C-alpha cells in the first residue's frame, strides 16, 4: 500500500487508507477517487524559490518528477544545495526518486523546497540519504503545496558512525500531505535532530511521521515538533523511536506541542517508544491546547491589536523550533516564512 504503487499501477485500491494503522489519520484512499494521468515535462514557469536569497546555494531542480536523480558530496567536501521539487501548473500526477550520498567527513546543507504551482496535482517523492562517517547533513525543507494537492515525501536515511543529521520541516499543508522520515541510527556517536513546524489553515491537512531505529550503542535523537491549526485544518504527528537490543546508552527525546485555534480544527498525535535495551534514557512529551488567554490579555493591555497579539504568541511558540536551525541564512528564511504565514488572523 503506497502512493508510489498506486501511481505506477493506476489502481486506487492500492492507496493507503485509514484501515492501515500507519495511515489512520491520513486517508489517501478517501481523498483520491481516481489516479490522474502522468504530469507532462514542463520547465517554462520556474520562478525564484524560497531559498533564492541564499547566494552560495547551487540549484538542483526537479519539475513534475523530471530532473536529476543523484546528488553526491565527496569526502571532506562542503556543499550547499537548493533542492527544488516543483509541481508546475500543468502537473497532474508524478513520482520522482532521488539518491543523495554524502561521503565520509562531507558536509551538505540541503535547502529543500516543495513548490506547488499547480492546483490538484498528486506528487510522490522518494529520497534516500546516505550519510558517511563523521559527515553532516543540515536539511531544511519548506513545503509550499497547493491547497488541493496530494503530496507524499518519504526519506530514508542511513547514518555512519559519528555522523549528524539535523532536519527541520516547515509546512502549511495540502489537501493531504505526508512528510515521512525513516532513520536507521547506528549509535556510535551519531546524532539526529528531527524538527518540524506546521501552520495550517482552511481545510488543509499535514502529517509528519518519523521512525528512528537505534541499532547500536551511544546514539542520540532529539525531536521537537510544534504547530498550530485553525479553521477546519487537521495536523498529524506520528513519531516512533525504537531502541533495539544492545543499543545501550541511547539518549532519545521527542516533543510534540500544538495549538488548536478554532473549534473545527483537529490534532492527532501518536508518539511511540519501543525499547529493547535497559541502559537508555528515553522520553516523550505531547501537549495540545489553546493559546493562553492571560498571555493574550497581557499583550493586548499593552495596546497590541488582537490579531497581532495572536500572531506574536504563535510565532514565539513555534519560533523555538526555527531557532534550532544552525545555518544562519536558512534560519532567516524560516523565520520570514513564519511571519508570512498569517496565522494570527482569526
Amino acid at each position, binding site marked *: 500500500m503506497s502512493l508510489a504503487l498506486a501511481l505506477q499501477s493506476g489502481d486506487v485500491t492500492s492507496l493507503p487508507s485509514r484501515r492501515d494503522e500507519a495511515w489512520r489519520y491520513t486517508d489517501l484512499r478517501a481523498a483520491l477517487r481516481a489516479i490522474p494521468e502522468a504530469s507532462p515535462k514542463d520547465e517554462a514557469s520556474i520562478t525564484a524559490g524560497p531559498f533564492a536569497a541564499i547566494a552560495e546555494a547551487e540549484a538542483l531542480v526537479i519539475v513534475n518528477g523530471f530532473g536529476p536523480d543523484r546528488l553526491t558530496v565527496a569526502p571532506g567536501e562542503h556543499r550547499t544545495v537548493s533542492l527544488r521539487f516543483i509541481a508546475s501548473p500543468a502537473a497532474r500526477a508524478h513520482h520522482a526518486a532521488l539518491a543523495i550520498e554524502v561521503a565520509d567527513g562531507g558536509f551538505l546543507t540541503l535547502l529543500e523546497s516543495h513548490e506547488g504551482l499547480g492546483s490538484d496535482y498528486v506528487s510522490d517523492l522518494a529520497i534516500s540519504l546516505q550519510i558517511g562517517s563523521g559527515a553532516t547533513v543540515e536539511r531544511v525543507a519548506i513545503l509550499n503545496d497547493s491547497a488541493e494537492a496530494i503530496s507524499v515525501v518519504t526519506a530514508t536515511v542511513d547514518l555512519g558512525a559519528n555522523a549528524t543529521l539535523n532536519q527541520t520541516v516547515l509546512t502549511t499543508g495540502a489537501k493531504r500531505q505526508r512528510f515521512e522520515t525513516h532513520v536507521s541510527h547506528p549509535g556510535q556517536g551519531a546524532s539526529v535532530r528531527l524538527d518540524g513546524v506546521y501552520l495550517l489553515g482552511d481545510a488543509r491537512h499535514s502529517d509528519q511521521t518519523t521512525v528512528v531505529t537505534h541499532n547500536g550503542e551511544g546514539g542520540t535523537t532529539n525531536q521537537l515538533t510544534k504547530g498550530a491549526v485553525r479553521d477546519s485544518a487537521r495536523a498529524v504527528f506520528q513519531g516512533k523511536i525504537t531502541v533495539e537490543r544492545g543499543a545501550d546508552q541511547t539518549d532519545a527525546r521527542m516533543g510534540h506541542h500544538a495549538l488548536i485555534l478554532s473549534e473545527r480544527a483537529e490534532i492527532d498525535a501518536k508518539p511511540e517508544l519501543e525499547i529493547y535495551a535497559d541502559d537508555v534514557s528515553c*522520553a516523550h512529551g505531547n501537549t*495540545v*491546547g489553546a493559546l493562553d488567554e492571560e498571555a493574550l490579555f497581557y499583550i493586548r493591555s499593552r495596546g497590541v491589536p488582537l490579531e497581532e497579539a495572536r500572531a506574536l504568541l504563535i510565532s514565539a511558540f513555534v519560533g523555538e523550533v526555527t531557532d534550532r536551525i544552525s545555518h544562519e541564512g536558512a534560519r532567516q528564511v524560516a523565520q520570514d516564512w513564519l511571519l508570512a504565514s498569517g496565522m494570527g488572523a482569526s
Partner: protein
Amino acid sequence: MAAVKKTIDQVEQLETYEHGFVTDIAQDFAPRGLSEDIVRFISAKKEEPEWMLQWRLEAYARWLQMEEPDWAKVEYAKVDYQNLYYYAAPSQKAGPMSLDEVDPELLKTYAKLGIPLREQEVLAGVQGAPRYAVDAVFDSVSVVTTFKKELAQVGVIFCSFSEAVREHPELVKRYLGSVVPTTDNYFACLNCAVFSDGSFVYIPPGVRCPMELSTYFRINAQETGQFERTLIIADKGAYVSYLEGCTAPQRDENQLHAAVVELVALDDAEIKYSTVQNWYPGDAEGKGGIYNFVTKRADCRGVRSKVSWTQVETGSAVTWKYPSCILRGDESVGEFYSIAITNGRQQADTGTKMIHLGKNTRSRIISKGISAGNSSNTYRGLVSAHAKATRARNFTQCDSLLIGKTCAAHTVPYVEARNASAKFEHEATTTRLSDDQLFYVMQRGLSREEAVQLLVNGFVREVLQELPMEFAVEAQKLVAISLEGSVG
C-alpha cells in the same frame, strides 16, 4: 534467624507460585467445544429466561463472523476454541444456600487464598476494622456472596450475575451490553455468547455503599475458559468501591480468561474499581499461564459522575486489557491508575481509553510499567476529545522501568483533539533503575534485592496510594514477589 527463615519460605513460595495449587473437587462440565448447543446448554444450566438465551445466540452468530484481533504487541499460540470447556462448576444443588452446604474443599480453597467467606471471620478482627463483602466465583459459577442481607437493608443489590438475571431482569435488560456492545470486539462477543457468571451490583440513588464490595475469581478446572461478566450500576448520587482479585492453578497449558466488565455511573455517582490480577503467569520458559483478554469499560453517563480504575497487573502469560472511560456526562471525571509488572516471558499490552464527549470533562492517567526477565510490557492508550467536549482536560503520565538486558518496554499513546479548548498533556519516560540511587540505598546497608524493592516501591507509589488499604498491602507484597529473581 526468624528473618532468614521467612526469606527462605518466601523464596520457596515463589518458585511454586503461591496460588498454584489445584482443588480436587467434583465438577460438572459442559461437553468440550463450542457450538449453538453449548450456548443453549449454559443458558439452560443457569435457568435463564428466553430473552437471555436469544441475546447469547445472537452474539454467538455475530462472533462466528468476527476475526481475532492481532494489533496488540503480544505473541501467543492461537487458542483452539473447539478444544475448551466453556462451563465447569462444582457439583452442588442449584439455587441459594447457606455456607454450611458449600463443599468443605471449596471453603478450604478460599481459606488458603485468604479470602474471608464467613461473615463472622471478617468481623473477628479488631473492632471497627474495615469490612468487605465477597462474591466468590469458582470457574464458571458464583459459589457464595457474603453480606447480602446487610447490603439489602440499604437497598444495595450485590449478587451473582445469574441471580440478577432471575431476580432483577428489568435492571439487567436495561444495562447489559449498553457500555460494551455485543460486537465491540472478538473476545467481548465470545463472552456475550458463553458467559457463565460474574457479579452484579446496583447502588440505589443517594446511597453510599457501606462496605467495600469484592469479587474473587478462581480458575480451577483444566482446559477451561473462564468468561465472567460484571455489571455495576451506580444510580444518581451513589458511591461504591469495588475490588477484584484473581488466581489460577499452575498448569502447563494456557487457559483463556475473557471477561467483560461494564460500569454505569449516573448523575453525581462515583465508582471506584480496583483490580489485583495475579493469574498464573506461566513458568520461566513461558510454558503455561493464563491468557487474560478482558474488556473493561465505564460509561460516565450522568453529569458530575466519576469512575476511577486502579489496576495492579502482575500475573497472566498474556494480558490484553484496556479499562476505559466514556466521559459522556458534563463535568464527569475518569481516572486510570495502573501498575503492570512483567517478568519471565510474560507479555502485557495494557492501557486505557479516555473518550471525552461532555463539557468540562477531566481525565487523569498514571501508568507505571515494569519489565524484567524476557518479558514485554506495552502501554497503549487513547485520549480523545469530541468537538462538543469544550474544556476537556487530560493529564497522562506513563513511566516504564526496565530491569535487565532482555526485557522490552513500549509506549503507544494516541491523542486526538477535535476541540479548541481541550487541553491535553502527555509525558512518558523509559529508564532503568538509576545506579546512583541503588548505590545510595545499598551503602545504607540494604542488600541489592532489598534496594531494588525499595526503589520499585517508590516508583509505583503513586498508584498504590489509590488502592483501598487491605489491597494496597497485598499489592505491595505482590510487586516484590513478581520481581523476585530478576536482579542479577
